[in-house]
């Protein structure tokens, strides 16, 4: 690379935090530089991807000076300068932090016991870390609206709100809906929907729940459903579109499994949150990802069928293998929801003997946003890119892929109409969900869903992201990856 096209080297500045020498990139603020060097400065209103209002004042730091008194400012808005000596734990800063915590908790209700943010609340954490003192106020707290629905999905508890305005800035600067604002002044200030906007129409609205550092913004669904300490997160990938956002799937911890209630509650998705992935989705996900529970928890197919009659799993596999072995003109309809591993297994099993065509398992639903400026992509399948690397797309005229002399059609996944199969051809269906088409197939074998297996998806940009199993698979259900090998070899899984 010639010098002319070499990017200009970023100027580095030497500075120190609490006596430890560090380096910062010129232009970084103290809070950014501290983070880059592994030092966490407390903050409520600061966010790496949002503007800096400096509202909360908890990130106050002291700057030592050779001549003159030290001075104090907020770390989130103060640029690092060469030779700067920052103190984050001086006596003055401790006092300021305690004062700020006194202010923040002044009118904040002490309702951690019933607050859904409890366990994840920054205010709770900082109170232990920075203050830990009882309130110095002897006057009653001011009260505000306890339950104000900001949208159908989000409930605002004004008494807990500390006016950090992260939610307002998110709708202004990221989602673009400009749906939220602040009304009134002083300690009467409230977050409210903008008069000319509808927060329901913001397809990224649920991100404000994660952004809220306290329990002011809550998911209407989760607030009556689960507490965070009962849950654990499993890293996964949103299959809602070809973006393949990294997510965390939250579900009940093993040690908190419910014995007395419906055991199915132990394998439900309690919430979805974004998992930071700068290459794919940054820090955000859309509401479709949040609603994955609705997608994954549709009525499952758990019983193998042979011409509509229940059969044992091994019998169904044997019957399907027999059909495949006897087929003279077989065709496979390949799922674009299969993982890279499943696609590789399929290709290894049938790659040279069975022609395959990739179908769209899911199409946009009525009213769904097709594409937008931020994350949402038009193809609503997570792994079409990887599937198309192995097989061509199913042509618009399906008969071009399924000639009249096709004798066996292997349909993998959802989104394929059995009526398109040439008459006389045998049909083997592999699916996870209950569909009427399952019972019309010659052989139906239930396969696992994403939350029951490990794997990888390749998104539209070619970024490969892993997902992990959160729930056990039932004995009557088989992993597609193992099934393909068995079908090709005619052996049991």
């Amino acid at each position: 690379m010639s010098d002319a096209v070499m990017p200009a080297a970023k100027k580095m500045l030497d500075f120190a935090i609490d006596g430890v020498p560090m380096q910062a990139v010129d232009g970084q603020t103290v809070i950014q530089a501290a983070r880059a060097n592994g030092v966490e400065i407390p903050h409520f209103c600061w966010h790496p991807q949002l503007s800096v209002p400096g509202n909360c004042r908890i990130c106050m730091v002291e700057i030592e000076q050779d001549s003159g008194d030290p001075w104090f400012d907020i770390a989130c808005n103060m640029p690092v300068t060469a030779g700067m000596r920052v103190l984050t734990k001086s006596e003055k800063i401790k006092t300021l932090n305690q004062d700020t915590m006194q202010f923040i908790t002044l009118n904040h209700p002490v309702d951690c016991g019933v607050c859904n943010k409890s366990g994840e609340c920054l205010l709770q954490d900082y109170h232990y870390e920075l203050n830990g003192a009882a309130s110095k106020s002897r006057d009653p707290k001011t009260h505000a609206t306890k339950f104000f629905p900001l949208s159908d999905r989000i409930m605002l508890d004004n008494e807990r709100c500390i006016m950090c305005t992260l939610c307002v800035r998110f709708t202004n600067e990221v989602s673009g809906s400009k749906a939220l604002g602040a009304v009134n002044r002083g300690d009467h200030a409230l977050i409210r929907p903008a008069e000319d906007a509808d927060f329901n129409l913001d397809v990224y609205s649920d991100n404000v729940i994660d952004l809220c550092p306290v329990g002011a913004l809550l998911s209407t669904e989760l607030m009556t459903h689960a507490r965070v300490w009962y849950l654990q997160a499993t890293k996964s990938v949103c299959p809602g579109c070809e973006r393949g956002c990294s997510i965390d799937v939250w579900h009940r911890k093993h040690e908190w499994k419910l014995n007395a209630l419906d055991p199915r509650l132990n394998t439900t998705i309690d919430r979805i949150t974004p998992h930071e992935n700068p290459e794919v989705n940054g820090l955000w996900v859309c509401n479709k990802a949040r609603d994955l529970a609705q997608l994954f928890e549709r009525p499952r197919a758990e019983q193998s069928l042979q011409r509509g009659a229940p059969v044992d799993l091994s019998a169904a596999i044997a019957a399907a293998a027999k059909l495949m072995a006897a087929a003279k003109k077989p065709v496979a309809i390949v799922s674009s929801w299969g993982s890279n591993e499943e696609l590789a297994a399929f290709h290894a099993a049938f790659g040279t003997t069975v022609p395959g065509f990739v179908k769209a398992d899911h199409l946009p639903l009525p009213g769904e946003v097709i594409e937008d400026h931020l994350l949402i992509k038009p193809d609503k399948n997570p792994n079409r890119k990887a599937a198309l690397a192995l097989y061509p797309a199913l042509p618009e005229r399906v008969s071009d892929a399924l000639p009249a002399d096709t004798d066996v059609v292997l349909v993998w996944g959802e989104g394929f109409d059995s009526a398109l199969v040439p008459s006389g051809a045998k049909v083997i269906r592999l699916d996870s969900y209950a569909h009427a088409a399952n019972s019309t197939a010659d052989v139906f074998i239930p396969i696992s869903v994403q939350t029951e297996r490990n794997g990888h998806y390749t998104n539209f940009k070619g970024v490969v992201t892993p997902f992990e199993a959160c729930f056990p698979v039932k004995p009557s259900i088989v992993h597609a990856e193992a099934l393909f090998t068995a079908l090709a070899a005619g052996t049991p899984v």
Partner: protein
Amino acid sequence: MKFFMNFPVTETSHTLVEYRTRLGYQALEKALRMTPTDVTKEVAAAGLLGHGGAAFPAGRKWGVVKLGDGEPHYVCMNADEGEPGTFKDRWLMECVPHMALEGLIIGSYALEGRHAFIYIRGEFDLAHRRMAEAIEEAYAAGLLGENILGTGYSLDVVLYRGAGSYVCGEASAMLASLEGKKGWPRNRPPRLTVKGLYQKPTVVNNVETLANVPVILRLGATEFRKVGTPKSPGTQMISISGHIAKPGVYEVEYGYSWTKFIYEDCGGMQNGKALKCIIPGGVSTKLLSASEIEGVTLDHNSAVAAGSQVGSGGMIAIAEGTCMVRLAAVIQRFYHHESCGQCTPCRQGMGWMERILNRIVAGGGRPEDIDQLYKISEANDGTTICSLGDSAGYACSAILDHYREEFEYYITNGRSMYDGNLTVDDPFATSPFATSPFANALVGAAS
């Protein structure tokens, strides 16, 4: 020497015709023949200090803006005069609107601005109408708009009416309001002269500051400096109110005797009462007791040396017999009402202070309340985005510093030391509630 109040106020004295008879717009003609840099140098040489309260040198503020940088530059006239006790800018806009407007045009020329803004307090009806008329007259006379006075310089002025929020008088909050956003102050850096209105270099000047600019250009910096003191040149408009015999707007030369101003020019206190204290420049400045202003002159250095500021020139005279606890509660009610609610210490601290003061006034004060008020003031000092939190703290702590015994009396007795006869025939002394733990509150409520 009077710069502003040197003409009889009549029904037409605010018009362009009459302003021109008082040499109006001669300074503009002179300025337009100078280079913009020279205009700034002249203002800087005059030593003009900002008249909004902070007293920052206007010429230095103008000089920070880089000319010819290809960016639009804006000058904003801060006419959102909301400091309690301050009403001198209103007088200027009602009586000499062209003077401030001329200053705004000269300032915009000096900063190579194409658009200028006047942010006027929403409640100022007459001032708004007078300023709107003045702008209209200036456009008609070729003093605004395209090719001003045939010099090739063009300027448009936008008159924007605020919605009545005290904090919108703070420069950065004012710009946010002008941009159509909620009037919340911004953090500095960057300074407004670097990224101000619409993120472009912007100078915000008070009405009186800009009204001084034509005087400087017309007289010249050297002549201007002959008025006032070396460090505070010129005059100061002072609006005085409270228990003063002759409240109103006065123009005094910097360096004028404070006691002379109060006892001679303003006629002393109403009903011959003694002066208890002065809030010198709006309630945001620290009060000074009657004895503290003796020997002090009306200029920035002298006021600072005495422990306060000239501030916005909104002076409030308080007579002997005034309950300072109740005064503190009233002042704090204002700050609580006007705190914008953006940053934590001010948003929560203002309400907390008001609740404590209200409780003391209602007779339910506790001995620890005084220390708590100090503590809240201290926690607001220098920790807020704008200076509203600091100011409220200064106002309260200055009253506590001077009149702590009044608070202690109020807390101990559940009533003000200026209320009725507290030693004889106290109706509550024999009350069945006297021994109740809520006695203080009951007494306070009844009184």
